[in-house]
């Protein structure tokens, strides 16, 4: 990599005897979105906490924006935006008060809280108490809070977990806007579709270890089946599936036969989903 925003080397963390993150190493290019995928308890949040300076690594080292996060967390945090997995807003304050407080703590001058609320779809709700917000609205406010300091790097820990489709889409759009602005985004999720849509690369983490790391396309290529599936009408009138491997020497003939001899309803390539790949690699699901 030419310009890595994150370099993790043998990063390790344990809670007592339980090793949560086990010697993981990876790099994230500046401006890249890396999706860290894994089931609950795989070590995603612990990794985010270490990379964002909330936890000091118990082993290994990480540099974020060229700074050793273990030694100088404040230097990184000043340039980072962090959206926590669990909502931690001041519920008895309104949305504007929440944002303005954090703007002060980031020492942001001329901060336009209303514009930021507008951006996350909370325009006009600034003076409402956060306690009156829905889960989706709170999560959008959490994302807005993470953007106050126009961060060079964003750590988003399950930003759309449990949200309605509209709120989730609103947050995804903000993530894409931030990517276009040039921010590096470290996204943890167990939503495969989301990771597939947003991430330049995805890393699978399981039991504290990185099991695979590549672009979604490359992973699908490597672990997918490469086959065509044709739905045809069978002799008894019911739909049947015909699978044709793409890389065999007789593929063209088989495709031709089906179209010539059977009534084809649909044809599609069989791509593995990220979830299929995760299961194949780790032997467990993402739930």
């Amino acid at each position, binding site marked *: 990599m030419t310009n890595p925003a994150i370099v993790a080397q043998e990063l390790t963390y344990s809670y007592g005897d339980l090793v949560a993150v086990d010697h993981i190493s990876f790099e994230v290019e500046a401006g890249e979105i890396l999706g860290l995928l894994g089931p609950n308890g795989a070590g995603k949040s612990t990794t985010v906490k270490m990379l964002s300076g*909330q936890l000091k690594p118990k082993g290994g080292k990480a540099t974020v924006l060229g700074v050793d996060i273990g030694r100088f967390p*404040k230097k990184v*945090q000043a340039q980072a935006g*962090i959206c926590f997995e*669990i909502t931690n807003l*001041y519920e008895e304050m309104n949305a504007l*008060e929440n944002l303005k407080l954090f703007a002060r*703590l*980031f*020492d942001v001058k001329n901060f336009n809280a209303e514009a930021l609320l507008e951006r996350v779809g909370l325009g006009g709700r600034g003076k409402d108490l956060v306690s009156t917000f829905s889960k989706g609205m709170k999560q959008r406010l959490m994302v807005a809070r993470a953007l106050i300091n126009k961060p060079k790097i964003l750590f988003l820990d399950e930003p759309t977990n449990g949200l309605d489709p509209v709120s989730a889409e609103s947050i995804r759009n903000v993530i894409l806007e931030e990517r276009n602005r040039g921010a590096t985004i470290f996204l943890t999720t167990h939503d495969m579709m989301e990771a597939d849509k947003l991430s330049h690369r995805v890393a699978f983490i399981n039991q504290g270890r990185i099991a695979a790391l590549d672009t979604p396309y490359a992973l699908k290529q490597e672990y997918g089946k490469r086959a065509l599936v044709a739905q045809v009408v069978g002799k008894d009138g019911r739909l049947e599936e015909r699978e044709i491997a793409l890389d065999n020497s007789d593929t063209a003939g088989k495709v031709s036969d089906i179209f010539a001899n059977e009534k084809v309803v649909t044809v599609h390539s069989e791509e593995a989903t990220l979830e299929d790949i995760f299961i194949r690699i780790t032997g467990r699901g993402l739930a």
Partner: protein
Amino acid sequence: MNIRMIFALVRKDISLYFKNKFFGLGTILALAAYLGIFFLMPKTVNEKISLGFYAPSFPDTVWDQYNSEEVTLLHYSSLEALKQAVTDDKASVGFVFPDDFLQKMYSGEQTNAQIYIKSDLPDEYRQAYTLVLEEITQQLAGHSLNITTNEVVIGTDMAGMQIPPRNRMLPNLAILILMVETMGLAALISSEVESGTLRALLVTRLRPAGLFISKGITGVVMAFTQVLLLLVITGGLQQKPGLIMTALLLGSILITGISFLVASLARDVMSVIAWGMIAMIVLAIPSFNVMLPGLTTDWIKIIPSYYLIDVLNKVFNYGMGWQTATTNLLVLLGLSILFFIGGMVAIRRKI
């Protein structure tokens, strides 16, 4: 250290404190209650002793020689009236002399007098009143002891200037405000730990030291302002205001440190109240010594609040000055720093 950040946090904390109905309204009501208690308590001390007598054979003029500013002799016309007067606290004690008392006494015969006392009168008082009776009968018989006595007062002579109950209570009320504040601040911090907002604050430019200084300022401002208000309204700052305010400021820092410790132990508001009550009870023990001097011994000095209560009591009620208070203030300063730092470390480990 960025002052703007700290100011923003203090403003936020005070705003959140008063948005919490339990603590916000509770603080205002408690302050009003303390003022009410102070002004309802007696502002003077009744220094007179009333001795009741039932002695049908005695001429009334006998009593005139014993009446003075401090001692009033009340002559009752029946035994029942005397007993009722003792029961109703109109007379501290009732002396009964039989009809033939004077006759027997002058003839040198053995005679008997009775003392009526209330059931809850302490034993020392009973013995003292017996001696008073014996002294009176000796004088009536013309056998006064041939001695004179001189009073030598050590320290400030408080004769005629006894400390009224409300003044004894004032240091305790001041301490009570500080102690209630312990729970308020601890609840505020605990709820921030629980909700994760402290974690959010600490991933900004704000450093942990700045966070704790802001919490400390919030605690001190809240506690100090309330107690100052109480003292201004009750006139408690009329004597040596600088000394009192210094002691209270140190006390506020001590209390803030204790709040941090309580918050570090607690998991939610209910456990803040539980731990806070334990802290309050322990810290309140030295107050009992002010209301009932002599109740406790030197072990009380291991309780940190002793050094604050002792200074306040001696300044309010005995006119103590800077020179005498220095040792207590230094100990209080040391304890305040110790508890503040200890509290910060405990909370930091919890976040």
